[in-house]
C-alpha cells in the first residue's frame, strides 16, 4: 500500500509514462517497421501512435472509475473476487516478464557495444540492484528521478538530430504509399506495441493526486512518444537506407556510431548518447519493477509494498537469463509485445465495459 503522501502530480505522471515507454524499443523499432513497410515505415509509426492513444484512452477511462480504490480492488469489485485476483496476478507476471526482457536486451546491447567482456549476469544484476534501490522508497521518489531525466533525454535527442542532419537522405523514404493496407495495419499494431507502457499508470493510478487529468496525461505522453518515434525512424531509415536498416540488429546504434561532430573536436559522440540511453532503460525497468511490486502488494493486501521488491528480484533475474541468444530474445520480445496487446488493450477494455455495466446496474437498483 502506498503511503498517503506518496502521490504524484499530473506532470509527474506524464514523465512516468514517457520514461516507461521509451527504452529498449527505440533501438529495435526502426528495423521492425522498415521490415514490414519499407519506405512507408513512418506511416506505421503514426498509425501505431493512434492505436496506442486509443488504448491509453481506454486505460484512462478505467482509471477515472477507480474512486480511490487500488487497481486490484477495482478489478475484484468489477469482475468478482476470483477473476479480479487472477487479473491482478496476470498483470504482475506480465510486469515481471517485461522487466526481464528489457534487462536482457539492455545487456545484449552493452555486451556488443560497450562492455564486451563483462558478463551479462553482472550487467543485469547491477542495473536491477540500482532499480531495486530506486523503487523501494515508493512512487514519488522514483518519479522524481524520471522528471530529472526528462530534459537530459530531450536535449540529447535534439543534439543528435542536429548532428545527423548532414548525412540524411530523405529520398530513402520514397516511394510512399505503396505498401498494401493489410501490411500497414498489421505493422502499425507492432509499432503500437513499442509504445506500450501506459498500462503502468493503471497500477500507479492509485498514486495520482487527482484522476481528473488522466486523459491529458494520455494525450501528452503518447503524443510526445509518437513524435519522437517518427523522428527516430525517419532519421535512421534515411541515413541507413531501408535495406541496411532491415539487416542490422540495432540500427539506431549504427546511426549513433556514424555521426561526427563537425570540426573533428569530438571524434565519436556515441558514448554520451549511450549513457543517456542506459538511463532510459533504467527508468523503463524501474517503472515496470515498481508496478510489479505494487501489484503483488495489493494482491496480498500487504501494508508494506517494499518487501515484494526483493522477492521479485531473483525471478526477474532468472527470466532475463533464460533466452540463449539474441535471436531467441527476439521471440521473447515478440511474446511480451503480444502480451502488451492483451494487458494494454483487451483487459482494460473488458474492465471498462464491465465497470460501466456494473455502474448502470448499480444505479437502477
Amino acid at each position, binding site marked *: 500500500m502506498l503511503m498517503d503522501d506518496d502521490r504524484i502530480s499530473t506532470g509527474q505522471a506524464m514523465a512516468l509514462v514517457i520514461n516507461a515507454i521509451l527504452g529498449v524499443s527505440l533501438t529495435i523499432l526502426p528495423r521492425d517497421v522498415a521490415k514490414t513497410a519499407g*519506405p512507408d515505415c513512418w506511416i506505421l509509426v503514426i498509425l501505431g501512435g493512434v492505436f496506442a492513444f486509443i488504448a491509453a484512452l481506454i486505460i484512462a477511462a478505467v482509471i477515472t472509475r477507480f474512486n480511490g480504490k487500488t487497481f486490484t480492488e477495482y478489478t475484484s469489485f468489477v469482475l468478482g473476487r476470483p477473476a479480479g485476483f487472477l487479473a491482478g496476478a496476470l498483470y504482475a507476471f506480465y510486469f515481471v516478464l517485461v522487466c526481464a526482457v528489457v534487462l536482457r536486451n539492455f545487456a545484449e546491447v552493452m555486451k*556488443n*557495444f*560497450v*562492455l*564486451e*567482456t*563483462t*558478463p551479462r549476469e*553482472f*550487467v543485469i*544484476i*547491477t*542495473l536491477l*540492484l*540500482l532499480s531495486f*534501490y530506486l523503487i523501494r522508497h515508493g512512487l514519488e521518489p522514483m518519479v522524481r528521478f524520471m522528471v530529472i531525466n526528462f530534459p537530459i533525454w530531450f536535449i540529447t535527442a535534439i543534439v543528435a538530430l542536429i548532428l545527423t542532419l548532414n548525412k540524411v537522405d530523405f*529520398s530513402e523514404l*520514397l*516511394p510512399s504509399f*505503396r505498401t498494401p493496407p493489410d501490411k500497414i495495419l498489421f505493422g502499425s499494431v507492432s509499432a503500437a506495441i513499442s509504445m506500450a507502457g501506459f498500462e503502468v499508470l493503471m497500477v500507479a493510478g492509485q498514486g495520482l493526486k487527482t484522476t481528473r487529468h488522466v486523459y491529458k496525461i494520455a494525450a501528452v505522453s503518447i503524443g510526445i512518444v509518437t513524435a519522437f518515434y517518427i523522428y527516430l525512424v525517419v532519421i535512421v531509415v534515411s541515413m*541507413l*537506407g*531501408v*535495406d*541496411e536498416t532491415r*539487416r*542490422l540488429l540495432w540500427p539506431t546504434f*549504427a546511426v549513433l*556510431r*556514424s555521426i*561526427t561532430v563537425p570540426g573533428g573536436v569530438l571524434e*565519436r559522440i556515441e558514448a554520451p548518447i549511450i549513457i543517456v540511453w542506459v538511463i532510459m532503460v533504467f527508468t523503463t525497468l524501474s517503472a515496470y519493477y515498481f508496478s510489479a511490486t505494487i501489484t503483488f502488494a495489493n494482491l496480498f493486501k500487504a501494508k508494506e509494498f517494499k518487501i515484494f521488491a526483493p522477492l521479485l528480484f531473483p525471478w526477474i533475474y532468472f527470466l532475463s537469463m533464460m533466452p540463449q541468444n539474441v535471436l531467441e530474445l527476439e521471440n521473447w520480445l515478440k511474446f511480451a509485445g503480444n502480451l502488451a496487446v492483451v494487458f494494454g488493450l483487451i483487459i482494460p477494455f473488458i474492465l471498462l465495459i464491465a465497470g460501466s455495466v456494473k455502474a448502470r446496474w448499480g444505479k437502477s437498483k
Partner: protein
Amino acid sequence: MKLKKIFLITVAVLSVFYTIGCWDMVDIDKRFFVGNIGVDRAEDGEQMLVTFTFPIVRKIAGGQGGGQGGGGGSTIVVISTVTDSIHAAARQAAMRLSRRLFFEHTRVILIGEELARDGIEEVVNFLERNTEINRRGRVIVVRGKAKDALTIKNEIEVLLALYIANIFENRDICARFIETDVDEFMKQVHSMNGNVLLPRLTPGKTDVKIGGAAVIKKYKLVGWLEENETLGANFVLGEISGADIMIDIPGYKYPVVFTVTHNKAAMELLEAGDYPKFRVKLEVKGEIVETPEQIQLAPEMLKIIEKMLEDRINHMVLASIRKLQEEYQVDLLGFGEYLSKYKPDVWEEYKKDWENIFPDAEINVETKVKIRGIGASK
C-alpha cells in the same frame, strides 16, 4: 537498520565496478591502435593475407620531443598473417604481439585487387558484424597488393592511416575519385545487391595515389573507372564541389581552366518502352581560373566558353555512362534507384531483369554551365 547499511554498501560497491567497467579495462598502454587493415589473397590462392599496421606511440612521442626520434627507424609496425578470416587474423597476430590489437580507430580498410576479383563478401560481413570497427573508416580497393600500399616509406605524415584517410579530404578540390566510408559502403552494397563503386588506390614507392574507381559488381571487382571517367560519374552522382576542367581554344597554346564549385544532377525518365529512356540534367557552376595570356574575357566570350564546357562535360559524362553500360553492364549511378523511388510503377516492370535492361537504356545528358567568377583579371 544494519541490513539497510549492508545493502547500501553492496549497491555502492557494485555500482563502482559497473561505472568503470573493470572487466573490459585494457589500459591504453596495453593496446595497439590499428590504423589500417589490408586484405589480400594469399599466395596459395585460397586463404587471405591480412595486414595490420599500427603506430608505436612511444616513438612518435619521442620524435616530437626531439629526443631519440628521427633515426629510430619506422614508427609504424606492419604485421601480416595468413588465415581464412580477418577476425581470426587479429587473433593469430596476437601470438606475435605484446599487446592487444584495437580496431576502434581504424581509418582505412584496403582490399587487394586479387581478392576483390574473387569477391569481397567476407570483408563486407566482417565490417558489418564487428561492433568495434569505426563506421567512418574508408574502404578502398588497391591496384595490386594491399600490403604494398601499407609498406610504403612515407614521410609526409607520422601516421600512415592518417595520410591515406586525409587524402579523401581533398575531394572537394579534386573530384577524381569516389568518396565513401564504411557506413555509406554498407548501405550501397546491401541496397544494390553488391554493386558499388569504391575508391581506387595505387601504391607508389613513397606515396600512394587515390584516383579513379573500382567497379564492384555482385561483390566482385570487374574493372576500373579511370580518373576522367570517375569525374564523369561524380557529375551524375551530383557530388562535385571542386574539379578542374580544361578546354583547348583553337589558336592558343594554353587551355582555359575552369573549376567546378557547384554541381547538381537530376534524372528524368523520358520514355518507358522496352527499354527506358533517361535524361540526366546537370547544373554546373564554377569559375575560370586560368586562360591563355592573350585572351581578354568578355561576356560573349564567356558564353562561348560555357558552350564548350557543356559539350566537354556532356562528352565526359556520357563516356563514363557508356563504359558502365557496355563494358561492365552494371548500374552504379543510381538509375535503378531513381526509378524505384520516383517511378515505382515503371520499376515494377524492369526490376527483375534490370541487369539486362540497363545496358540498353538510352541515356542523354544535358548540361548547363554557369560561369560565376573569372578571378582577378579580365
